[in-house]
C-alpha cells in the first residue's frame, strides 16, 4: 500500500516538529527517515501511524492507497508499529504477545484458536525464535525482544510497517545482524515499511529510499546512492559520514581553498562568494612529497592501522583537523608515522557555495 503525506505541520506548544512536510512512499518500498534527534522524523512516523494528530489544516492529507486516513483512528489504519524500546507486554509470554493483536479482535473477525496458534508459530519461525514461545520478554536478549516486537506488529497482517528506531537500543553487532535480517524479511514479504533512524549507515544499508530530515523539514530524498554520492547540501553530506571541510572562495570558474583549486563552473553569479569544499576521508590521497598536483601540507598526528582500512589523522593549515582513509596496500606504498609531514590532495570533491549549491 502506498503512503502519501501532504502538507503536514505539527507543533508542540511553541516548538515546530514538522513544517509543511510532503512525502510519497510507493507501494512495497522500505523507506528510511534519517535525521538528527529533533528533526521531526519520529513525529512524522507517529502521524502516519495515527498516534499523533497533525495540526488542523484543510490541505493536510495522509493517504493510504489514495484514501485519506487522517480521520481514521490508529486501530483502523492497519499499521504494524515497532517501538524503539520494544513496548512488549511484560506480563505476557512471547506467544501471547504475538497472539494478542489477533485474540482481541471482535468475535466476527477473530481467527479460530487453531488459526491463531498456526499464525503465531509461523511468525516465531520467521523471527527464528521457534522454541522461545513460552518465555517472558524479560528472559530474552534485546535483539530477541525486538524481533518479538516485530512479529507482534506483523501478526495483525498490517498494510504498513512502521519502525521507530528499532535497533537504537541494541549493541553494534546485534544491530548489524538484525539490519540484514530486516532487509531479507522485507524482500520476502514486501510490505510498505517506514524506518526511522539516526544511524546513517543503517539507513543507507537497509532502505530502498532515504529521506533526510533536518529541523522539521525534508532536506533531501532519494536512493541511498543518490543521497550519498550527490548530497543536496552540506548538511546531508556531513550527516551521511565524516567529511573534511575546507573554506575558500569562488574565483573565475574555480574555487580556491588553502592551496587547493577546484574547477567550479558555477557561472559568474557565484564569483567572489565564500565556498566550502567537502571531501570524504576515502576520497583524499596522501603523499610524502608534493607531486605537482594541488595539495595541502599537513602534519600527521595519529595513524590507526587496525581495521579494514588505515585511518590517518592530520593537522592541516590553521590547525584544522583532517582525516584520510587509505587501503592498506595504498598506505604500504607511502607509509607515514605521527610527526611526519605529508601532502593531502583530493580525488573527488564537492563544492558548496554559500547560498548556492551544485
Amino acid at each position, binding site marked *: 500500500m502506498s503512503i502519501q503525506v501532504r502538507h503536514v505541520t505539527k507543533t508542540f506548544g511553541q516548538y515546530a516538529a514538522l513544517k509543511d512536510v510532503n512525502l510519497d512512499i510507493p507501494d512495497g518500498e522500505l523507506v528510511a527517515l534519517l535525521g538528527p534527534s529533533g528533526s521531526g522524523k519520529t513525529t512524522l512516523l507517529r502521524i502516519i*501511524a*495515527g*498516534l499523533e494528530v497533525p495540526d488542523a489544516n484543510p490541505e493536510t492529507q495522509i493517504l493510504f492507497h489514495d484514501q485519506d486516513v487522517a480521520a481514521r*483512528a*490508529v*486501530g*483502523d489504519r492497519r*499499521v*504494524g*508499529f515497532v*517501538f524503539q*524500546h520494544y*513496548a*512488549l*507486554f511484560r506480563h505476557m509470554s512471547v506467544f501471547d504477545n504475538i497472539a*494478542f*493483536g489477533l485474540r*482481541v*479482535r*471482535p468475535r466476527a473477525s477473530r481467527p479460530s484458536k487453531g488459526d491463531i496458534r498456526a499464525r503465531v508459530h509461523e511468525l516465531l519461525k520467521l523471527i527464528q525464535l521457534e522454541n522461545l514461545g513460552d518465555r517472558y520478554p524479560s528472559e530474552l536478549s534485546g535483539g530477541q525482544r525486538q524481533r518479538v516486537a516485530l512479529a*507482534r*506488529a506483523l501478526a*495483525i497482517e498490517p498494510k504498513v510497517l512502521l519502525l521507530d528506531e528499532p535497533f537504537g537500543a541494541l549493541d553494534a553487532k546485534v544491530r548489524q545482524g538484525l539490519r540484514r535480517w530486516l532487509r531479507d524479511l522485507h524482500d520476502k514479504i514486501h510490505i510498505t515499511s517506514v524506518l526511522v533512524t539516526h544511524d546513517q549507515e543503517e539507513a543507507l544499508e537497509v532502505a530502498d529510499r532515504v529521506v533526510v530530515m533536518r529541523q522539521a523539514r525534508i532536506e533531501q530524498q532519494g536512493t541511498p546512492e543518490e543521497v550519498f554520492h550527490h548530497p543536496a547540501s552540506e548538511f546531508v553530506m556531513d550527516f551521511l559520514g565524516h567529511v573534511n571541510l575546507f573554506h575558500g572562495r569562488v574565483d573565475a570558474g574555480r574555487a580556491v581553498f588553502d592551496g587547493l583549486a577546484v574547477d567550479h563552473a558555477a557561472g559568474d553569479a557565484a564569483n567572489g562568494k565564500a565556498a566550502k569544499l567537502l571531501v570524504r576521508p576515502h576520497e583524499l590521497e596522501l603523499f610524502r612529497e608534493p607531486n605537482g598536483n594541488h595539495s595541502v601540507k599537513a602534519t600527521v598526528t595519529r595513524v590507526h592501522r587496525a581495521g579494514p582500512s588505515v585511518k590517518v589523522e592530520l593537522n592541516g593549515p590553521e590547525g584544522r583537523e583532517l582525516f584520510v582513509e587509505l587501503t592498506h596496500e595504498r598506505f604500504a606504498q607511502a607509509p607515514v608515522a605521527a610527526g611526519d609531514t605529508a601532502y593531502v590532495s583530493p580525488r573527488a570533491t564537492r563544492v558548496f557555495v554559500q547560498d548556492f549549491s551544485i
Partner: protein
Amino acid sequence: MAEQRFQLRGPLTAATIRATRDALAPALAHARTAGPAVVDLAQVAAVDDIGLAQIMAALLDARAEGKTLRVENVPQDVLRRLSLLDPKDVMAAPQAGPRAGALESLGDGFFARTRDGAEFLGIVVELVIRLVMRPKGLRLKAIVEQVMIIGVGAIPILSLIGFLIGVIIAFQAAYQLRDLGANLYVANMVGLSMARELSPFVTGILVAGRSGSAIAAEIATMKINLELDALRTMAIDPTSSVLLPRVIATIIAVPILVALANVLGILGGLVIAVGPLSLSAGSYWDQILIAMRPNDILIGMLKAVTFGIVIATIACHKGSQVSGGSREVAAATTAAVVSSIFWMIVCDAIVTMVFFFVG
C-alpha cells in the same frame, strides 16, 4: 534629579573587602534616599571576584528596592570575565522554582486538590459513558484477574487489621463504659463503628496504599514504555482494556473487603468481650443484633463503593498523566496515594453528614 558620582580608588580585592564595602555604602545610601547614583571604577587598580561580588551585591540591593545604581568605566578584564558567565550554561536553577511561603503552599495544595477533584469527576463521567457504550476492549477475564489481585490479595492483611481494630475499639469503649457498668454496650460501639466508619475507611486506605499505588505505577510504566501506544496500534483502546477493568475490579473488591473487615472487627470485639470484660458470647452477639440495623451496613457499603471509585480513577488518572522519564513513575505513585486518601476523607465526610441528617 542629578546623578551623584562615587569615585572608587585602589584595588577591590579579597584583601580590601571591608574598605570596598565601606566605599560602596554611601553610593547605595544615596541611591536609596536622594536619587540616581553612579559608581565609577575608572581609577580602580584591580578587581578580583570578591570585589566584583561586592559590587554585584550593591547593584542587586538597589534593584530589589527599585532604586537606580549604575556602575561605569568597568575595566575590560572584568567585563570579559562577566561575559564568560552565562549561568544558564553551567548551572541549573532549582527545579521547584522559588520556595513558597507556608500560606502560599497551603493555597497551592488546596488548588491542586480542587483541580484533582474536577479532573476526577470528569474521568468518572467519561468512564460511565464508556461503560454505557459497551466498550469492545473490555473483557470479563481482565476484570476477574484484577479482582483477584486487588481483592483476594488483600484478604490476609485486611483480616488481621480488621480483627485488631475490633480489639482496639472494644478496649476503648470498655475504658469509658466500665465506669457506668455498661460493658455490654461495647458490642454497640464495635458493631456500629466498624460498619459505618472504620471498616470502609481502613479498607480504603489499605487498598489505596496497596493497589492504588500499584495501578498508578503499572499504568505509568506502560505509558512510558509506549505499551499503551502499542495497544492502540492493535486497535485496542487502552481506556477500555487497561483502565476500566481496574476501576471495575476495585469497585467490586472494596465492598467485599469491607464486609470481611466488619466480620473480623466484630470477632475482635467478641474476643475482648468474652476475655477481659467477662461477657458471654451469646449476650455480645444478641447486643450486636440489636444495635446494628441494615442501614448501618448499607452506609458502610455506600462508602466502600465510593472509595473504590475514588481510588481506582485517581490511580488511573495519575498513572496516565505521566509523560517523559521513569522518574515520574514514583511521583505519580505518591500522588495517587495522597490524592486518593484526601478525596476518600472528603467523600466520607459528605456521606457521614448526609446520613446523620437523613437517617
